[in-house]
């Protein structure tokens, strides 16, 4: 069975100019009038998600916004003054998919972190924050002097504690630090040991890019990317498809380029072990607990919404 998700009809620029643009740039380009003589340019592509178990093929149009064509009409004929060329369209498309991948990851984070934190590599890398927050939860206060003996380690702890302080997870008090307002509210909601993964999940959700780039915690990146690669397809299909390894890894390639860190198979295996995905024969299926909140969050993201449902939202300038 094949299910089509049909895009709304688009208005277009004068036929002659549109034909020229399609010939000169890309045949799958779409143009929508955004102001007098300027046309918003998007690439309309289609993704095919084949659910192997249900034997269903979902064909989903996705729209990638690229920029503006500016035209003028002289002696009754319109001509293009400015607009992206072929290589710019290719590059912009690639960049847009990277952006989609990053946003998809962000929408997934709050729901999977608790599970993701059980992956050994991720747990190891977030160790210092885990230690600091656990100490405050169990003992009520944290003495920074007791955390490290060596000077180099003390400097490192200073950075982590300042980070937690900026995020209002700790504040100065007691023998050094006590729980800040953000951590206190988490402790009120969840008083047990589960408060720590919850707090770390929230911190990771708010500061994922910062942690991976400034703290250099890149160990967790591939796990999140593999998860995002599956659930992006699920978002497109609006269900939980049963994907084989080839479909899953090709989605990873589309969103993030070539996988370079570690072994893909062992990373996928870790995701199965912690229950972010399930195995069904030699195929992979997601869980509804992750998918539903992810879908809700992703539909609030203007970029993801725009890509999945063609036709919305102007871009902003700078002040």
């Amino acid at each position: 069975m094949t299910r089509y998700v049909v895009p709304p009809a688009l208005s277009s620029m004068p036929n002659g100019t549109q034909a020229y643009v399609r010939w000169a740039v890309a045949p799958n380009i779409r143009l929508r009038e955004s102001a007098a003589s300027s046309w918003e340019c998007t690439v309309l592509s289609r993704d095919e998600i084949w659910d192997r178990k249900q034997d269903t093929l979902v064909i989903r149009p996705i729209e990638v916004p690229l920029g503006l064509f500016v035209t003028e009409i002289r002696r009754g004929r319109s001509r293009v003054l400015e607009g992206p060329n072929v290589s710019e369209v290719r590059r912009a498309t690639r960049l847009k998919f990277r952006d989609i991948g990053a946003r998809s990851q962000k929408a997934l984070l709050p729901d999977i972190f608790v599970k993701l934190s059980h992956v050994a590599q991720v747990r190891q890398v977030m160790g210092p924050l885990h230690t600091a927050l656990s100490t405050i939860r169990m003992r009520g206060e944290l003495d920074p002097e007791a955390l490290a003996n060596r000077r180099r380690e003390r400097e490192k702890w200073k950075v982590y504690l300042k980070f937690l302080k900026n995020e209002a997870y700790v504040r100065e008090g007691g023998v050094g630090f006590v729980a800040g307002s953000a951590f206190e509210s988490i402790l009120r909601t969840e008083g047990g040991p589960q408060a720590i993964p919850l707090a770390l999940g929230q911190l990771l959700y708010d500061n994922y890019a910062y942690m991976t780039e400034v703290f250099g915690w890149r160990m967790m990146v591939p796990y999140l990317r593999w998860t995002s690669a599956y659930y992006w397809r699920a978002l497109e299909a609006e269900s939980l498809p049963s994907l084989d390894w080839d479909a899953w890894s090709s989605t990873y390639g589309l969103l993030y380029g070539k996988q370079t860190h570690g072994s893909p198979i062992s990373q996928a295996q870790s995701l199965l072990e912690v229950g972010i995905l399930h195995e069904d024969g030699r195929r992979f299926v997601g869980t509804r607990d992750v998918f539903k909140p992810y879908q809700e969050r992703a539909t609030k993201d203007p970029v993801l919404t725009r890509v999945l449902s063609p036709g919305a939202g102007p871009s902003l300038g700078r002040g």
Partner: protein
Amino acid sequence: MTSRRVPGVTTPKGSLRPKEVAEKMVFQATPWDCERTQVFNVLAELLRRSPGENPASPRDLVFSCFNGAVPTPVGGKAGWFAKLAQRVGPRFEAVVSKPEGTARWANVTDALSEEAASFPVIAVSSGYWAEVDTRPKELGDQEHCLALLSADKVSAVVFDCYLNRICSMGHCELPLGRSIAPGDAAVEVPLQRLFKYWEGTSPPRFYFYVRRLGYRLKSLAEFEEAKVAR
């Protein structure tokens, strides 16, 4: 990018304190002028830092602009920054753009530590206005440009060229209507929040800086003269 020592550099960038750098910068004249103002600020600072005796070659500067090359409503494939470069000065050799996914914070901090480069200018999303306790109505949800003067792992100091106007609207501690000096506009922002604003722009992670290619530069006076002549 590796740091290169260039002959003629009298004051290494690393020894400058953010407030001292900010003191010589200028505020923007109108609400929509942050990009041009910051280009002028960082370029002028670069030229001030390296007064040379040798005449400058037309090919001695690279205007490096990252993630800004995606066609924008302002300028199609030439982009807004090429027009900006034309307005600011005559000697720009090239515009370098980098794919969105590969612009990292490390690239910005490299530019910050390189002597031959100007201070980097980063774009921030409208969330930044919360840092200065206001969201100017005249700008709405517009993005903004900040010159990054220093950064460590948890905090950064930026020069906000719009802060004088914000203060004149009564949003800072100064009495209403009193303007502030540029030196006071060096604002310390927690890095994790600045990072979020930097990521939240469209396109995300936009930044630019100007870099010398190894020649000595003309003095600032000569630069301004050339600008007026143009």
